[in-house]
């Protein structure tokens, strides 16, 4: 019997006033009973509109049917036949704008909780089976992957499964890109990312950390060393600042720096050497997911936290779920407010941030109503720390050290939309390095497309 409930099974979560003092995962995940019950809400409709919304083409009704039968291994096999990182995408994907927004059940009531079910299946597998994949027979062709974020991990995994000898080059000491330095532990436990990386290595991929492509090793040298194709998934890690007075004061961070200290360097944990400032009151400037992550980290470090955003709540690019979680955790939102300058305490440290109130004017080129300052509405917000979360752009290091690699005005690599091929033969690119800062799932989709095109290219040129 299908479950005709109009609402999703709710996700068990830590209490907001408990979780805002720890870095443990907010959502504790479905039990098997909850998952089976939710799976029965899927009508297994013929049109399968949900699948079209998924950038990595998971056969959604098929895996959900397996869950409804209680065949979790079967469900895992269906998911991983097209998606290498289900425990990650099930957690961080904006399903409300991808698969779930196409779900028929969503026309009257809530859509099927596809993301929660995907996560359940991946977690069940890791906790109950956790078998490492076997290395497929090698085809002898070497390929290089630059970076180890979601685009690269997906591309490397798909190529390794086809028998390519894959080497991944990562600048940091840990693989995962934004999954380890950016997204906090309470949204995506690092042990889960590591488990996915371990599986990739079991498939035969070779991971070389501490290698900065463009400095330690160049793409030209990779070809000289016998790599036949290269995938560039180096992301968009270069933070933007506002250019207002006081941004160089002690206590002003980019969100990337603040999150890297906390997540990658584990500044929140006793016994780790990397420091992070003890803050009493923090202003996070911006309205994206990264701003939500920074604000929620600062809250867990014991500070009073404000999110300062120049537009209204409806214009925030962050996921609704993240905004909701942040509010539950006691973070205060100052919509239609914009920083003008950061003020000195007389000793080079942040004393306050001067803000001005805004109102919305006519729509701009992006179609959103442009925020305009209200003259004379300036006031001082008492904070000792400011975290700038205004977005990021691609790092110029790779394009500046790789002759013939075309980039656009914004510094994004130019790649074909279908094949992800760049202007250099044998070099493919995907993820934020091409699109600028976007989402994990779009990066995974790009990595997947590139792997298909690289395989075709390599088979034509070097296959038997």
């Amino acid at each position, binding site marked *: 019997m299908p479950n005709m409930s109009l609402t999703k099974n709710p996700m068990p979560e830590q209490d907001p006033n408990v979780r805002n003092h720890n870095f443990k995962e907010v959502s504790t995940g479905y039990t098997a009973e909850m998952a089976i019950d939710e799976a029965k809400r899927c009508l297994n409709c013929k049109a399968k509109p949900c699948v079209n919304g998924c950038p990595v083409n998971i056969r959604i009704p098929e895996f959900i049917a397996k869950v409804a039968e209680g065949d979790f291994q079967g469900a895992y096999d269906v998911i991983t036949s097209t998606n290498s990182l289900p425990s990650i995408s099930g957690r961080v994907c904006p399903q409300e704008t991808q698969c779930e927004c196409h779900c028929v059940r969503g026309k009257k009531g809530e859509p099927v909780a596809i993301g929660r079910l995907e996560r359940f299946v991946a977690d069940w597998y890791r906790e109950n089976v956790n078998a490492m994949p076997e290395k497929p027979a090698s085809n002898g062709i070497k390929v290089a992957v630059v970076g180890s974020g979601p685009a690269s991990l997906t591309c490397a995994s798909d190529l390794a499964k086809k028998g390519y000898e894959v080497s991944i080059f990562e600048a940091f*000491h840990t693989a995962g890109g934004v999954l380890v330095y950016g997204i906090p532990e309470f949204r995506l436990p690092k042990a889960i990312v590591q488990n996915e990386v371990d599986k990739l290595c079991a498939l035969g991929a070779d991971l070389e950390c501490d290698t900065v492509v463009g400095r330690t090793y160049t793409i030209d040298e990779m070809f000289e060393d016998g790599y036949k194709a290269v995938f560039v998934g180096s992301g968009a890690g270069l933070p933007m600042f506002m250019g207002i007075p006081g941004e*160089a004061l002690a206590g002003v961070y980019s969100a990337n720096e603040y999150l890297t200290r906390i997540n990658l360097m584990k500044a929140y944990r006793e016994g780790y050497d*990397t420091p992070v400032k003890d803050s009493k009151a923090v202003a996070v400037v911006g309205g994206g997911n990264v701003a939500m992550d920074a604000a929620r980290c600062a809250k867990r470090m014991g500070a009073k936290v404000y999110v300062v955003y120049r537009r209204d709540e409806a214009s925030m690019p962050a996921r609704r779920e993240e905004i909701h979680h942040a509010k539950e955790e006691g973070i205060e939102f100052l919509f239609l407010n914009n920083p003008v300058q950061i003020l000195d305490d007389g000793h080079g440290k942040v004393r306050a941030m001067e803000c001005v109130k805004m109102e919305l004017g006519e729509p701009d080129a992006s179609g959103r109503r442009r925020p305009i300052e209200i003259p004379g509405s300036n006031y001082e917000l008492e904070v000792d720390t400011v975290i700038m979360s205004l977005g990021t752009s691609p790092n110029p290091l790779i394009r500046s050290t790789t002759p013939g690699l075309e980039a656009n005005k914004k510094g994004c690599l130019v790649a074909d939309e279908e094949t992800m091929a760049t202007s250099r033969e044998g070099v493919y690119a995907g993820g934020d390095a091409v699109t600028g800062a976007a989402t994990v799932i779009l990066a995974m989709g790009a990595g997947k497309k590139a792997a298909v095109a690289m395989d075709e290219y390599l088979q034509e040129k070097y296959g038997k």
Partner: protein
Amino acid sequence: MVKIVRKKVLNPSVTLLEVEAPRIAKKAQAGQFIILRLDEEGERIPLTIGDYDREKGTITIMFQKVGLTTQLLGDLNEGDTILDFVGPLGRPTRPELGSDVKRVCVVGGGVGCAIAYPQAKSLHEEGIQVDVIAGFRSKDIVILEDEFKAACDHFYLTTDDGTYGEKGFVTDKLKALIEAGNHYDAVIAIGPVPMMKFVCKTTEPFGIYTLVSLNPIMIDGTGMCGGCRVTVGGEMKFACVDGPDFDGHKVDFDELMNRNSVYREREAREKERHACRMEELAAHMIH
């Protein structure tokens, strides 16, 4: 993971380590730096590449024991390993000087001499006339004297207290040399921030191009966080990718000193943890 192949104690607080890092040694140029992390709980710290041997595949670093990580690093011995060692990072110095430079004065202060030395050496090998002024607080902390003498045309050594060489600061000597008619196309100053600031103040009235090697706080060293941002000529620059060398007459030194002091209290607390971290590190290496 890299292995330490040579250790030399240069003075009570400055240590030299030579490590096996063939890929970095192949690429390294004077002025570039590495970032290292000792173990899983460790922080990432930047250190300038003191020397490199492309054939042996080794990199030499020289550092002062000033805090927890450098204390722990200084306690390591030949045969020990360092978990992470990344580089070469930053832009090399040489192109910043231009191609028509004929005579340069390299000014090193304290442990900064460890970084000034490879600069002097590589310029001297290129046939550029190099004078070196090396300044120390007192005689007991003098380093690299013989190495410097072999790597330049004129070598001047100063101590603040006059216990060795000429008494006074490097800026006194530099000013005297310029006023005596020595013409320099460029001055390279490497040392504590106040020392670099005063070298720039000394050369500014003479209009001598002065390059400084900045040492802001860094985390990744690849341009993704902006922790190392400095103001140069009114513009925000990231020292790890745009530098670390900059035109000293354009640098906001006071801002740099302020930003470098953010974690001072925490660093003092950390140093007290030295003993127990040393045990952990030892245990980690045995396994």
